[in-house]
């Protein structure tokens, strides 16, 4: 089905307005808030601390644990029942994997670093917003990282390649393909890729290209947010 114009008036390769803020949870070692369109994620990092039970410990570095959760009122339909479910567990796992290549926790053997991601409001793209927030929170916490991680959803709505699908586009009656990707902006390496829907090889390549372009803008925003936090600290 033809998709000729985006409902919110964006260009096909245009993202929704974004904002990022570092240091939003005072109790945490590092924290950040990331908003894209109406999707709002906050992330907080705690640790390194001793990991129990002991058999989970790794001798050569800390274990990273990510926990993605939607607040009960943050869904677009009925209340989301509290607690982990299959979806949130899978998302937690892929988010964790997206950080493995950049994060160096070898300084902290037998320890654990916890990243908690909470969604306050959702309009699609929640795992990507979660990754963008978590990346800032980990950097804010001061862990060694080769790069920040930027994530965006790209894909197909009807016959049109787009970036940053919102919920109405994901639910487009003419069909939609959602491809969340996470990118290491310095090298262009991809650390998360999922896809559901049906897409040609050519469109897939085009979607990922658009997604990588979009990630450059996220990278700029993330860097600015981190600088702002440290500028504030320097003044204080």
């Amino acid at each position, binding site marked *: 089905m033809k998709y000729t114009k985006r409902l919110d008036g964006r260009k096909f390769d245009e993202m929704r307005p974004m904002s990022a803020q570092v240091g939003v949870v005072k109790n945490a070692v590092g924290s950040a808030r990331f908003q894209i369109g109406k999707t709002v994620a906050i992330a907080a990092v705690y640790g390194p601390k001793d990991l129990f039970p002991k058999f989970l410990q790794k001798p050569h570095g800390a274990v990273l644990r990510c926990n993605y959760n939607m607040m009960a009122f943050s869904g677009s339909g009925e209340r989301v029942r509290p607690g982990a479910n299959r979806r949130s567990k899978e998302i937690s796992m892929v988010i964790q994997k997206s950080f493995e290549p950049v994060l160096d926790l070898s300084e902290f053997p037998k320890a654990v670093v916890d990243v908690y991601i909470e969604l*306050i409001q959702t309009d699609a793209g929640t795992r990507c917003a979660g990754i963008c927030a978590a990346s800032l929170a980990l950097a804010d916490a001061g862990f060694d990282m080769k790069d920040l991680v930027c994530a965006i959803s790209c894909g197909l709505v009807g016959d049109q390649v787009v970036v940053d699908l919102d919920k109405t586009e994901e639910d487009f009656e003419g069909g939609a393909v959602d491809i969340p990707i996470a990118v290491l902006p310095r090298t262009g390496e991809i650390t998360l890729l999922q896809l559901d829907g049906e897409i040609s090889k050519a469109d897939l390549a085009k979607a990922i290209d658009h997604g990588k372009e979009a990630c450059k803008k996220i990278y700029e925003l993330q860097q600015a947010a981190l600088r702002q936090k440290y500028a504030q600290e320097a003044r204080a």
Partner: protein
Amino acid sequence: MMISREYVESIVAKNTRLDGRKFDEYRSIEIEYGVSSKSAEGSARVRIGDTEVVAGVKMELGTPFSDKPGEGSIMVNVELLPLSSPLFESGPPSIEAIELSRVTDRGIRESKALDFKKLCVREGEKVWLVFIDIYPINAAGNLFDACNLAALAALRDATFPKLDGDKIDYSQKTKNKLPLTKLPIACTVWKVENQFLVDPLLEEEQASNARISIVFTEEGKICAMQKGGDSPLMSEEIAQAVELAEAKTHELRRHFK
């Protein structure tokens, strides 16, 4: 770094507090509405000093209780997110979370702040169930009062979703506000050493032996109470706490004007 109980007690004995406040002085309070307006039927953020809490209202249709066929109901749930404090852990709700949920619930339920009869769609068959979910974002003391304020603010912000026969169209919100007839406001009084104080920092909470939460309606009626902590209180002390709490709830109420 933790400040020891003895230190907090010694400061209180000198007639002051860790952050220099008076014993009956709250930190600055901010209420922000509609923090999840795309998703929730009503939502709010409350800040008391460094403590931050968000609350959201979600509505569903359900069958009424058989003894109250013409009334809807509320469910209050507080989840102590490990995101908000190094002291909270993942897993099933802790007893602290359950107590917070139930005390917040009681204040709203027993004051009849929400007119449950107006939540009836068809008697004996369909009623509205109002879920109030509350989450600390940064837990830095006084979650009892913060959760109460956040729940009330979210209810105040809430509107009914559109009803299409017996199905809810969550994508369309009506302009109909929830039947919130009054604001039952909680104030928790904490005893540190032999001193009563309000709005404790986390360190003051940990140095406290006894606390009492008291929920007041605008007319000065008490609609819920909960004593906590290991130490007992004399009835004169309870009367003293009630006086203090009433005065403070008048002050807190101004944030809703």
